[in-house]
């Protein structure tokens, strides 16, 4: 009944010495599993099972294991203690019993065993079905259904003409035309400034010699050229320059 397998201890001699053998947990998956195995050995319908007899069996089994000095996993011992308690309650006279009653506890244990048993049997029936790869086989070399993706190219009219516009813009030879801008050359400014300062006595601002013109570009050009011309005239000793402080008007007079 008890296919008690003992762990191979050849590779662990010091443990073997103390004879600490372990109850094979792979043999039973926990105390409930062991209980179910014992219950099934009673060979009655689980609904008819004698819980008291089952408890005796379990405790006897654990005691045997202890006598063999097997190390028993803690949860088996916890279950043994609980079952010993249950047994004593079941044997006690009725009046002294507390809630939940031992009958209730026994019934719950029975229900659990029934449920585990039902699933064990269901698992076995499932595994016994005609399974693919064992009993029935799929096609060995299916051709496969393939979806060939074909591109449906999309472009709209604007893409087309703007692409053409961009090619044209990119490849058309570029001609750069520099616009003619009215300027006062340095030569003009020299002649003009020399002549004008001769006609005006005393200090005058450089700006007062600027031409009246609507063209802002021309006025700026005239100012820049006249400034350089004033420096040049001063260098030649034909003019004097004076400025009260930075950014103040530049004053000029004939030397």
């Amino acid at each position, binding site marked *: 009944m008890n296919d008690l397998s003992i762990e191979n201890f050849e590779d662990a001699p010091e443990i073997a010495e103390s004879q600490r053998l372990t109850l094979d947990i792979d043999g039973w*998956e*926990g*105390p*409930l*599993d062991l209980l179910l195995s014992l219950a099934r050995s009673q060979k009655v319908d689980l609904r008819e099972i004698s819980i008291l007899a089952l408890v005796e069996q379990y405790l006897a089994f654990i005691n045997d294991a202890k006598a063999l000095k097997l190390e028993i996993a803690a949860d088996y011992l916890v279950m043994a203690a609980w079952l010993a308690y249950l047994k004593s309650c079941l044997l006690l006279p009725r009046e002294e019993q507390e809630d939940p009653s031992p009958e*209730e506890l026994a*019934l*719950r244990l029975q*229900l*659990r065993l*029934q*449920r*585990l048993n*039902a*699933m*064990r*049997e*269901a*698992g*076995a*029936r*499932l*595994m016994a*079905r*005609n*399974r*693919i*790869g*064992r*009993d*029935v*086989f*799929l*096609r060995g070399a*299916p*051709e*496969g*259904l393939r979806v060939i993706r074909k591109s449906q190219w999309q472009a709209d009219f604007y893409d087309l003409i703007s692409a053409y516009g961009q090619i044209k813009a990119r490849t058309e030879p570029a001609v750069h035309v520099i616009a003619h801008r009215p300027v006062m050359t340095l030569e003009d400014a020299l002649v003009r400034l020399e002549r004008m300062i001769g006609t005006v006595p005393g200090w005058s601002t450089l700006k007062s010699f600027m031409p009246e013109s609507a063209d802002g570009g021309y006025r700026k050009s005239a100012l820049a050229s006249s400034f350089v011309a004033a420096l040049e005239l001063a260098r030649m000793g034909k003019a004097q320059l004076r400025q009260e402080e930075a950014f103040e008007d530049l004053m000029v007079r004939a030397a």
Partner: protein
Amino acid sequence: MTDEPNDAIRAVEAALFAAEDALTLNDIQQAVGPDIEVKAALETLAEHYAGRGIHLVERGKRWHFETAPDLAHILRREREEPRKLSRAATETLAIIAYHEPVSRAEIEAIRGVQISKGTLDVLMEAGWIRPAGRRETPGRPLIYATTPVFLQHFGLEHRRDLPGLDDLKAAGLLDPVDEAFESLELESAEGDD
């Protein structure tokens, strides 16, 4: 009747034969084009193949051809058997299949032991179970359910074809212990009257 199949039947037959996986009605319709009555063709085909060495079967709303089960002895030769599932994995699979969707704690309550980490992995790797959301209870545990591949592998057309499902349901063996206990108490209380 030399039942020469019409083009609709031939097309559905060819698509199922060539497919690498089981096909849904929709998959088949896409393969054969919109003008074909797939459902009717499938019925005719299933009937045609019923007595042959190959059967056309429906598993979880997917269709495929497979060899007839009675010929297993011929085909099994020289083939490796699929790896045998451990008892823990078998029980866990049964619990998921019969109770789905079910949380890990619920599986453990039935088995009376913790599930080792590998057990659910093995079942997921086989493609038989999948996480199916979370239960809206404290802790929001992950719940598991079976897949169409599970039905296919075990030759089940629907989940309701699980062996003994109706009996287990009727016997209350799929109800949690607490519920079963209460209903038992109720019965006996009524019986006392």
